[in-house]
């Protein structure tokens, strides 16, 4: 079994602690907020000057002055704040966010992250990716474990241009949860029905197996979308 995109997002949501200040990147990370349980109070940051951002605006209720970093119309939760770009990136660069959840093209065993330049891309763009990777305390990566061609994305060393060196703390994929530690990668969980050897076979970098390594506990479809298939 593999986790769906929603499944990966669900698994991240389980780990975000109460009171976390979080920036969610585009793609799978965006889905994380949907899976937060109401017992946790979590504050979402958007690069363009928002803290305490709520869900995407319902059609017909959009405010033309309120978009997120992905240019979607969003909402605010009570207790939020607006500010300018210098403060927004002081929050990022100054280490004030507790979590940045990002996509990845490649992650290396030493925590190096490559997620800003795709191989075929002719016009480069970086946005806030580097600031997030360099600045945030816990950089968590969400990604499929292998490329669409079956090539591992978790490597001994990155081959693509780096977003930041030594920045990733944890990797959430469709088949595993892996910690990046000073001693290397540690497999913490694997998808239901798999085993550590299978995960290793799809991973270029060597994995250590955590003493309490176990299969993920994934419910079926809490929001109507299957989490694993």
């Amino acid at each position, binding site marked *: 079994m593999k986790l769906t995109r929603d499944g990966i997002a669900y698994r991240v949501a389980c780990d975000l602690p109460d009171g976390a200040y979080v920036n969610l990147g585009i793609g799978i990370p965006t889905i994380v907020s949907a899976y937060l349980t109401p017992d946790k109070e979590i504050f979402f940051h958007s690069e*363009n000057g928002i803290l305490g951002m709520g869900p995407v605006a319902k059609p017909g209720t959009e405010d033309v002055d309120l978009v997120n970093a992905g*240019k979607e119309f969003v909402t605010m939760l009570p207790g939020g704040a607006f500010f300018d770009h*210098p403060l927004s990136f002081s929050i990022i*660069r100054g280490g004030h966010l507790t979590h940045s959840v990002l996509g990845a093209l490649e992650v290396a065993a030493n925590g190096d992250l490559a997620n800003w330049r795709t191989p075929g891309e002719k016009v480069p763009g970086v946005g806030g990716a580097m600031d997030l990777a360099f600045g945030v305390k816990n950089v968590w990566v969400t990604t499929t474990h292998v490329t669409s061609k079956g090539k591992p994305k978790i490597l001994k060393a990155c081959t693509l241009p780096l977003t930041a060196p030594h920045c990733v703390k944890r990797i959430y994929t469709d088949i595993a949860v892996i910690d990046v530690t000073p001693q290397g990668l540690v497999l913490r969980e694997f998808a239901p029905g798999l085993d550590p050897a299978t995960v290793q076979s799809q991973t270029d970098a060597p994995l250590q197996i955590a003493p309490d390594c176990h299969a993920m506990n994934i419910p079926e479809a809490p929001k109507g979308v299957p989490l694993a298939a």
Partner: protein
Amino acid sequence: MIDKTLKTCEEAVAKVFDGATIMLGGFGDPGLPGRLLEALRKQGTKNLSVIHNGAGSGDWALGGLIKDGRVRKVTASFPNNPGAIAFQDLYLKGQIELELVPQGTLAERIRAAGAGLGGFFTPTGAGTELGKGKETRVIDGREYVFEKPLHADFAFVRAHRGDRLGNLSYRKAMRNFNVPMATAGNVTIAEVDELVPVGGIDPENVHTPGIFVDHLVALPRHPKLVEIGPPR
């Protein structure tokens, strides 16, 4: 009596000259000085150097200016936004220059210019392609890249409210790059939704004090939205 208001965007952009460096506020549509950009498009100066987070969308405002071949160089963090067709077309033909800057570094370089600083060391980019060729320094055990301030001849910003003294206040996510850019332009021109009397903006809520603003034009907001992203 000081009155910084002008009647039209045409007057406001009249002094822009060939080869000028122009900062454009806005992130997506909020805070984008679209009417000033359209006036600049009509005004006709060329070889412009533009500092903006993206590289325009479609063929309106900055997108249109680039499409018309008026922009020599773009300094941006996200010129690969899907709508930046005009930029990407010229870039791939080698007909427009790009200085790619991480978004936080872009904001901080603009602020540094307005704050009279000579430069700063940021961790962002150290050990990456975007740090290559730049001065680096290890400070208290961490590697930093040296970045210089970004000045501009003109800063175009869009605020929600303004008064004749140039005081501005923004709404929701409009502040973004507008606040630092207003401080970094040699001439700062603001497009506002509404002109209010002096005192109409509470001194606690003035986000850009009038000292930074040279001219402002009050015009109903342009209904066109250039950067509505697709639902994701």
